[in-house]
Each structure stands twice: as C-alpha cells, then as structure tokens.
C-alpha cells in the first residue's frame, strides 16, 4: 500500500491535516507516538481552546475529541504507540518511514508527509542553570503529569522559572494543592503570560522577579536552595545582585522548542528564530513533499492556529501527491524588519492570499504592523502573543518586508 499522505503526530495540527487531506481525496495514515490521539491538548484540562476556530470556549480534551471523532467517523486509519525511527526520501514520490510499534516494525511508503510532532520543553541545562544535578528540578510538563496523571505532589516550596502561561497555570495548580510558590523568575523586563493569567500572582501572593535569571541549584539529594540574580538589558547577570532562595523544587517553564530531530536528519533547513523548519506558503519544507504544521513549525499559543496550519499542510500535501509535485515558483522571501523576531512562512509567491504568523521582539503600544506596502494598526503587541494577519494578493510586493513599529 502506498499512501498519498502520512501524518506524523496526532495532535490537533496532525488531526486537522489528516481530515483535510482525506476530504481532498487523499489516502491518509496517521502515526501517533503516544497511546492516544489529541497531543498535548489531553493534558490541558483548563478552558481556552477553540475561541477563534469554533467560536466556542472548550477545554483541551473537549476540543481534541471533536477532531478525534471526525477521524473515526471518516475511517481515517491511525497507528498508536507508533515511533518513527527514520524517514528516507527515495524518490520525490516515494518516502519510506520506518516505525517501531507494538505490532512489530514496519516500513510505510508514502508520496507526501505532513510532520506535526509538536514541541518539547526546554530544560534547565538548556537555559544555563549550573550547580547540583539533584531531584526536585522539573519541567512544567513533568510536574503537570506527576500531578494530573499520577496524583503525586512534587514538592512544598517551589520556585518557577518563566512567567509564560504555562508557568502561571502551574503556579496556580501548585498553590491550590497547598504548595508555597516562593516566586516566579522572568528573564525579560515584562511578564510572558496573558493578562488573565497574571492575576494568579496576585491571588496567591506570589512575587514576580522580572529581569532576573536563575543561575545555580544547590542541594544534596534534593534541591535545597537556588541562586538567582538580576540581569541587565542584554540578559547578562549584574554582579552583586545574586541571592539564594530556599526551596525544594525548581520548576522550569522556559518555553517550548519545535521537535524537529527527524526533519534535521533529512537535511531540512531550520530557522534558528523559530527553531522549526523554513517553509513556503504551502508549508512545505526544503525537502519536496515534506510539509510541517503546528508546534513543529512554530510555537503557537493558540490551538486555532495549529489547526489552521494543519489544514493548509494537509491540503497541499494531497496536491503534491496527486500532481507529482507542486508547481515551481519564483518565490518572494519574507524579510524580517524592525522588531520582528520570527515570521512564518519564509517564502510567499504573490499569487494567493496568504496568512502570516509572527512574533515581535519587544512589547509596543499603539503599534503599526507593516507588511509590504500595507499598514495594520494594532493596539498592543507583546512577544507573548503571536500575531496572525491575512495578506491580500494585491498587497504583496517584491521585495516583501514585515515590521512592527510604534
């Protein structure tokens, strides 16, 4: 059996891609590493999902189940506990995926791939924390699964690194279970989370240390204290501002990075600013017929965007499979101007309406987003919130530059 599209990763982006590809007439298979479909939504038991896409406010599992039921009703095949070992591109229309799964190893052949394997959490070593390697240092996801999946209390006095939504939600979760959150440490001079989540700090009387960095852990078997210091505007430690905080737990919520190891092994180009692959507006990577969506492409704050990307990638993947490739184009690079940290896609063609996703470097009030020759007024831009803009065909210029200015 040769598939038109194999979707790697059965989270919201992957499910949306599979449904779309199926609806477009493709022969589709979903591969999911976990024992269930739905991706990280299954562990996000709070509401806040689907406001844009559905106009409804659902919890993570509720949102996921809509897609899972659709996959089932359309009889789209999927394999669970399927671990992708390796992908080989043999011909433009023949890609071999090597699997380990409970039913045995398997080589699957497909014409196109949609890669939607999500992201992984940054851990303490990656953000330069030194000192003792002891128990009590968890990523937010580890702490969340200890608590919500296995009913384990990780610690009593917790210091949290990172003031993004995930860190704040964990601060509330730990406080409600009786732990003392002794502080939230944020490298940036402004908090990373949405306003509605910042209220948590006030509710539970948790100090927020902006422009601070955790440097070092001290403990014998378990964390006993943690050293932090103030940083200057370049993120460098200011000598003399170091101080120790007593705690038994250090929770790292320093953000996610696209999980692109499999793609890297194919030699696909990666954009250091997103951590994900370089893509054109069809969400095709530099390897023909390999498409990417969701958190593997760029870290999305909203599931709605992940789904939107999934649908696009799914549709284009079928087109690739049916036509033996996508048409050659004279691509226009999307250039990053002032105050733009990252933007997706990297190349557009000027022949279609296109959706841009971008993040600013610094917060701006009454901002103007300039895309090509078009200006968009935006009341508040923060790095915490990804911007999504639709660009009409006639507003696309060559060259095409994007910038956020006050």
């Amino acid at each position, binding site marked *: 059996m040769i598939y038109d599209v194999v979707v790697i990763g059965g989270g919201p982006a992957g499910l949306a891609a599979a449904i779309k590809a199926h609806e477009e007439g493709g022969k589709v298979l979903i591969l999911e*590493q976990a024992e269930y479909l739905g991706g990280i939504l299954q562990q996000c038991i709070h509401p806040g999902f689907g406001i844009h896409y559905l106009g409804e406010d659902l919890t993570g599992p509720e949102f996921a189940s809509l897609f899972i039921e659709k996959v089932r009703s359309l009889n789209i095949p999927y394999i669970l506990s399927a671990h992708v070992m390796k992908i080989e591109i043999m011909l433009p229309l023949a890609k071999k995926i090597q699997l380990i799964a*409970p039913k*045995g190893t398997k080589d699957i052949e497909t014409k196109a791939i949609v890669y939607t394997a999500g992201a992984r*959490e940054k851990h303490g*070593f990656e953000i330069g924390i030194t000192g003792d390697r002891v*128990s009590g240092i968890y990523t937010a996801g580890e702490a969340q699964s200890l608590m919500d999946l296995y009913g384990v*209390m990780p610690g009593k006095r917790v210091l949290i690194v990172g003031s993004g939504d995930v860190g704040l939600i964990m601060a509330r979760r730990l406080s409600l279970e009786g732990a003392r959150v002794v502080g939230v440490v944020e490298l940036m001079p402004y908090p990373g989370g949405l306003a509605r989540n910042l209220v948590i700090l006030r509710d539970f009387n948790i100090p927020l240390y902006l422009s601070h960095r955790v440097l070092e852990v001290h403990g*014998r078997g378990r964390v006993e204290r943690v050293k932090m210091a103030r940083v200057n505007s370049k993120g460098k430690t200011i000598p003399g501002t170091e101080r120790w905080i007593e705690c038994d737990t250090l929770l790292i919520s320093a953000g996610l990075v696209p999980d692109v190891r499999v793609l890297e092994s194919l030699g696909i180009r990666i954009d250091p600013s997103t951590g994900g692959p370089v893509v054109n507006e069809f969400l095709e990577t530099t390897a023909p017929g390999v498409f990417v969506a969701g958190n593997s492409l760029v870290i999305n704050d909203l599931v709605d965007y992940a789904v939107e990307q999934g649908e696009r990638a799914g549709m284009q993947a079928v087109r690739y499979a049916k036509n033996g490739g996508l048409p050659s184009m004279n691509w226009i690079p999307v250039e990053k101007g002032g105050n733009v940290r990252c933007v997706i896609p990297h190349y557009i063609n000027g022949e279609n309406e296109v959706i841009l996703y971008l993040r600013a470097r610094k917060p701006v009030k009454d901002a103007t987003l300039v895309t090509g020759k078009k200006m968009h007024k935006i009341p508040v831009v923060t790095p915490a919130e990804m911007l999504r803009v639709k660009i009409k065909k006639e507003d696309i210029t060559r060259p095409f530059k994007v910038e956020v200015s006050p």
Partner: protein
Amino acid sequence: MSIRVTIVGGGIVGASIARVLSRYENLKVHIIEKMSDVGWGVSKANTALIHGGYDDDPQKYPLRASLCVKGNRLWQKWVKDLEIPHVWSGALIIALQNEDIKHLSTLLERGIRNGVPEMRLVEKEELQALQPGIASEATGALYVPTVGQIASPRATVAIIENAVKNGVKIHLETEVQGIKVSDGEVKGIQTPRGFMESDVVINAAGLYADEISRMVGLDYFTLRPRKGEYLIYRHGIPGPTRVLFPTPTPKSKGIIVTTEVGGHLMIGPNAQDMERDEKDNLATTEEGLKEVLQGARKLWPGIPDRGVIRTFAGLRPEPPNGDFIIRAEEVWGFINVAGIRSPGLTSAPAIGYFVRDILRRDLGLKLVPKRRWYPRRRDITRIAAIPDAQRDRKIRARSEYGQVICRCNHITKGEILDAVERMKYINVKTPSIDSVKFRTGATSGECQGSFCMVRIAMLLAQEYGVPLWNVTLKGPGSELGIGDINSLRREKK
C-alpha cells in the same frame, strides 16, 4: 578452606578486581558499596576514554605507566565478552604551536618506552585529512589509534553482573564504618547492617580510600578532589570522528573534544583543585563551563553557543605523588587500591590482575581456578540497534519491545523492564531513574527526560511495588515527590 575477600567500593576498580577474583574456587568475594547502585562514584562522571598509555612517565608513575597499556589491551577483550558499548576511534594529540611539536616527540618516545603500539606523528596536511573540521592553527599531531571510548557507568554494571553470575556477593546501601584489626591482621568490616568477617579487605573506595585506609591506622596519604566539568551537545551538532586532545600540561591531559559513545559531541574536563572536605561537591560552575568551552574551541572551532543538553562534573581522587597506590600493607590482609585517578578507568582490568598477583605473591595465597567460570555477559538488547528482522521477532514475542518510551534514544518499555530485572539481579533496593539511565541510556537524550522520566518512574514504582513519589532520581534522599497530591492539604488541616 575458603578465603573471605571483601572489596570496599563498587566502582570500576572494585568491580574489575571482583571479576578477576571470581575465577577462583577458594575465594568468597563480597563487594560493599554505600550507594544504592554500582558505579556511581568517580566511575560515573569522567571522560570515559580508554587511554593509549603514552602520557604516564614510567619514572615518576610506574604503576600508571604499566597498568594503562595493559588495561587498554584487556579492555579490547572485556568490551566484547561483556557487551559494553564502545567505539575505538583513536586519538589525535594536537599541536597548536611550534613548541608543542617538540612536546609531542617526547610523548611519542614515552609511548614507545611504555609499549604503546602504532603511534606516529602526523603533519598538518594529513591531520586535516584525518580530522576535517579541526582548527586551522593545528600544525601537527600525535596519532594514537589504540585510544577507545566506552560507556563508563554501563561498564561497571556489566562487570558486576558478570561477577555476580560467577558467585560474587554484592551489598548495596552498605557503608563501611570501621575495619577490625587484631594481631596485625584484618578480621572484618563494620557496617550499619552488622559486622562481616573477612580475611582480606581490598580498599577500592575511590575518593574515600584515604578514609578507609585510616580505619586500619594507615594515614600516609590523603586524597584531594580535583574537579572536572563537561558539556554535552545535542545530536546534529557535529563532533570529531577521533578524540582530540591538546598537547598536555603536567597537571592534566587537558580539555578534550570527542563524540561520545552515545553519538553526542562532548567537551571537557577542566581541572579545579578542591578542598579535602569537598568530596561530594559535584556542582558545575559557570566559570568552569566557560573555561571548558574556550579550551575546546581552540581545537574544534565550530562549537556553537547553543545546543547544550547537559552539563556535569566529576571529581578525581588525586594521590599525593601522582601515582596509584596499590599494595599489600603491613596490616596482613589489607590491600590499598587508592589514588586511582586517570587513567584509572583504562587501568581497571589490569588492576584486577595486579591485585590477584598481590594475593598470590605478597599474601602467599594459593588460588584454585574454578572448573566452570562464565566469561560472558549479555547486554540488554538495544531494540533500535538490531537488524529489522530480529527486531520484528523480538516485538512479536513481547509487545513491550515495540513501545518506545524514551523518544530521543529510541528506548522501549521492554528494555526498561529488562533494566529493572538487572537491577534486581544485583540487589538494587531503591528504585531510581539513574539506575535505568545507566543501563539503557533512557533520559539521556536531547529532552533530558522531559518526555519520558515520569513514565519510567511509573514503571519503576510498579515493578518495585512502591508509590510513585518514593521512586528516586539517584537513591535515597532524591525522591521524586513528597507524597500523594493531597498530602499538603491534609497536613494543613
């Protein structure tokens, strides 16, 4: 009549001695180890190189010079018999300045005297071909093809499993607190679990060997910890195909650059002298890591700022005169195997035979070889590394081999359960993540366990029949939780 031999310390040295002694019918060998698994002392955190043996001056350090070369030869057999992961990549000792070349000739001569085979000097042109990507300043190198690398904590586990198979008894979480001597003879050891009679006590206690020695009144040496720090990078950041050394200084072999057995670029160590009471200070430091990075970039300029997935530190037990202290002491039956600093890992198998010869020669013991001794030990099958057909058969026989838990290193549930079985085989009492890590490699990849650590903990909890919060990271005192989810709210009521 059988002779009771107690080895203090379940590191690579104690393990190797035990394996060699397990060949003899009339020895009853026990290993006493204070930690909850074997190989967690100095043997856990080091560069894991099987050195060539050119570096040790035979005049100043006769034991190091002879045991290193012998050890290298023995390892080439042991890694096969015991299925220890290894790569034999050879090493290049790099000259960056003209005076370095002179030093390399000295090393070459010393290597020739020590009996190191196949060494030669290479010039700039060949060097660039032998190791593309090396610093353009490199003007030449000493090429040592016999240098290898092994997975060092796994090596200790492998040797111990084989020793246990051959009758050695192992006592974990048992600290030697005193040694009984009377009439100038060793009588046994005191532990919190009671007194154990013994005719021979072999002190292989790593950093603490000076303290064990003092228990029989011998205080002629003290060991000083010397810290070395490392950085490990994610897959995809290219490392060299050979081990790269700078031209050594009298104090250390310098900061090396290598692709370790797991395939990651690894750099380190620096050398920082510590106070005597800092034998448990394994903390990494910002300055130390910076020093390592700077040093490594001199040889391997392409190391990026980002991409570190782990940092760690080890402590070398530095003896006062630099050489190993291995001898039968005047207290009859007490043998010191102390100050086993680098190249101690390399020398360990040779130390095993050296100690056997001490038993024969200095203690006058007659050793009776066993009629049946098992030279081989099988490693846990690495599902991802075996041919497809074989893998398929394994999975069909047991579906757990088809369930990948550690995504980064492709380790399956079946392999983790195998590791738990191996832990129980050597009497590991406290379940810990590190015990699984050092048997399978799980949690040591790019995500450092953020995807799989909790699931592995759950398997450990099930297999050991303990609540999940009692599973540890690295033995008692490092439990993963403080109780069930309601424990704090209950406390407050």
